[in-house]
């Protein structure tokens, strides 16, 4: 059966369930069950989508039956299908983690609808093939994230949400301005059509200026140097499940948008635009490394690790060769999964010790052995110790960089792995080794086990993702091929 609307299902299903949840504001149990059903259905749809894209190639649908460059086209290539699937997997486990940790007060105040609306926006941004429609989906996910960051109304949340909203409103304004500039020169909003038209005029200087504008817009959302300044404090304000969703998903939408625009639109002046992107990516890695080592706060250490990962992925994208792009795709998915797992794990550590300050922890391995070993596996996975998932991505990225003669950059990437390892092992040493510093607060064992389930599942998925890399590689290659050769994307959209 050929379903032309299949690629929209991972967007529509969460949207539909978010509406249904609004009828059950007070019935928390109904909300939990419906959220899980909705996410499970979306997951089935997204796996079906991956299978379809694998066998039949890129899926496109132009809304309202308009012809392709004029209507809003939704495009699902392997890259976006994989991202959509990863997003839904992470959300399922973070939602399960929320059951025992977010608190019934937040659950009764549209917590689950907000998550589902945010997933609608994220999956939409990953799938859309229209640059203005991408802005719309950015707004959908941002408005849901405004609710999530302020939900609960603690003093710190209120303070940080003002900054968060201000930064994002400004970057959204620049986004519209950049799209308007592009439209005034190119005269189209369809992403495939933009790529064709830019190739026709051979990317004059003004288009490169717009490329930098787009980099600023998505760089603010995706937290690249020096535009990440707002991120560490804002992300630390909301509770852990929300932090896990933001950390694993939101910055990656910015990274995806940079990847898409820099492989589809602005590919004719690589010496300038991609060199610029590469230098910023390396500076991002260095700034993230400094932050990751500087803090004794669990949340801050992992938050700065987000920034390092953004740098690594974008460094891979800036190489513009198959190895670099394959590595970037592989590392992007790895980082989403592992960041979800790590945030959930530090959430459990904070729950068990009652503090997020490393100096006040110690000796947890005696009482929480499973937690300790699970965390250690996740930490090794993040740093990229073979055969765990961080390794393959970094190997491919550095291979791409050596092929493109960016030796110094590769060395910085490899050195950053050591810093990443040090920063996360420091958590292990301080929290799990040594004598117990303070009396542990009394916690319900059942709640603890309920929290451990999603954490262990996420870590197992990352392990499988690393060990099964050989089996997953054809999918990564498909994704990277579309990025490396824009004509595949263009032909799929403008085929008629």
């Amino acid at each position: 059966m050929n379903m032309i609307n299949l690629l929209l299902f991972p967007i529509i299903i969460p949207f539909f369930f978010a509406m249904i949840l609004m009828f059950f504001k007070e019935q928390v149990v109904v909300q939990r069950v419906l959220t899980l059903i909705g996410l499970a259905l979306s997951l089935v749809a997204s796996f079906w989508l991956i299978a379809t894209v694998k066998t039949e190639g890129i899926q496109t649908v132009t809304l309202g039956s308009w012809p392709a460059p004029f209507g809003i086209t939704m495009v699902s290539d392997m890259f976006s299908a994989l991202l959509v699937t990863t997003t839904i997997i992470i959300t399922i486990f973070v939602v399960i983690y929320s059951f025992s940790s977010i608190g019934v007060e937040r659950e009764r105040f549209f917590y689950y609808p907000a998550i589902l609306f945010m997933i609608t926006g994220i999956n939409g941004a990953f799938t859309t093939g229209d640059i203005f429609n991408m802005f719309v989906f950015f707004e959908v996910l941002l408005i849901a994230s405004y609710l999530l960051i302020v939900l609960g109304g603690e003093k710190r949340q209120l303070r940080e949400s003002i900054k968060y909203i201000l930064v994002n409103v400004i970057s959204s304004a620049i986004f519209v301005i950049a799209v308007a500039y592009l439209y005034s020169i190119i005269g189209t909003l369809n992403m495939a059509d933009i790529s064709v038209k830019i190739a026709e005029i051979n990317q004059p200087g003004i288009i490169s200026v717009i490329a930098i504008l787009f980099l600023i817009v998505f760089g603010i959302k995706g937290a690249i140097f020096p535009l990440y300044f707002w991120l560490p404090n804002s992300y630390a304000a909301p509770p852990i499940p929300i932090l896990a969703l933001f950390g694993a998903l939101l910055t990656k939408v910015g990274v995806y948008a940079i990847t898409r625009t820099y492989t589809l639109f602005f590919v004719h002046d690589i010496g300038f635009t991609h060199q610029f992107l590469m230098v910023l990516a390396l500076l991002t890695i260095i700034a993230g490394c400094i932050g990751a080592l500087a803090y004794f706060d669990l949340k801050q250490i992992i938050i700065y690790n987000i920034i390092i990962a953004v740098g690594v992925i974008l460094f891979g994208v800036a190489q513009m060769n198959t190895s670099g792009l394959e590595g970037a795709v592989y590392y992007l998915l790895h980082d989403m999964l592992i960041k979800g797992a790590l945030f959930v794990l530090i959430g459990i550590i904070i729950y068990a010790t009652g503090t997020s300050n490393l100096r006040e922890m110690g000796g947890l391995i005696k009482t929480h052995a499973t937690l300790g070993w699970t965390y250690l596996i996740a930490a090794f996975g993040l740093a990229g110790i073979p055969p765990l998932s961080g390794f393959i991505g970094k190997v491919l990225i550095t291979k791409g960089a050596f092929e493109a003669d960016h030796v110094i950059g590769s060395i910085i990437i490899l050195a950053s792995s050591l810093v990443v390892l040090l920063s996360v092992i420091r958590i292990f040493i301080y929290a799990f080794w040594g004598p117990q510093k303070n009396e542990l607060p009394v916690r319900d064992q059942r709640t603890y086990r309920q929290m451990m389930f999603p954490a262990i599942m996420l870590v197992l998925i990352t392990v499988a993702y690393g060990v099964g890399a050989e089996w997953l590689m054809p999918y990564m290659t498909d994704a990277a091929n579309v990025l490396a050769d824009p004509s595949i994307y263009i032909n799929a959209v403008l085929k008629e």
Partner: protein
Amino acid sequence: MKTNDVILQTTAKVVFFIIFLFSIHIFFAGHYAPGGGFVGGLLTTGAIVLLLLAFDLRTIQQILPFNFTIMTAIGLLLALGTAAGSIFFNVPFFTHAFSDFDLPLFGHTSLHTAMLFDSGVYLVVVGSAITIIQSIGGDD
């Protein structure tokens, strides 16, 4: 101090219906002419806000005893449901259908599924705008 707002309250009672009927007119004028669910919804909201200014929040909740959050959700469902109808016919999402009918009383009428979508938008706009006004105005 008790303010004297007899004139405002008396006019508001009449003007409310004028604005409301005009918003319905604008709503149905939409699609082929300027208008539609969004503008119609805003005009209706305007009419309700006029009542709110003339009377107070509690009176409004008594004469319009709806849960506006639920109204927003129903509107969203209506809009998405109309757009999703295309899934069952396996045509691209948002594809609409229309035809001309000879109806009794109305005569020759063009009926359009976009109207259903627009009524969803109408409900969403009224529901969310009133929810915002209620939660800001309900503080004091």
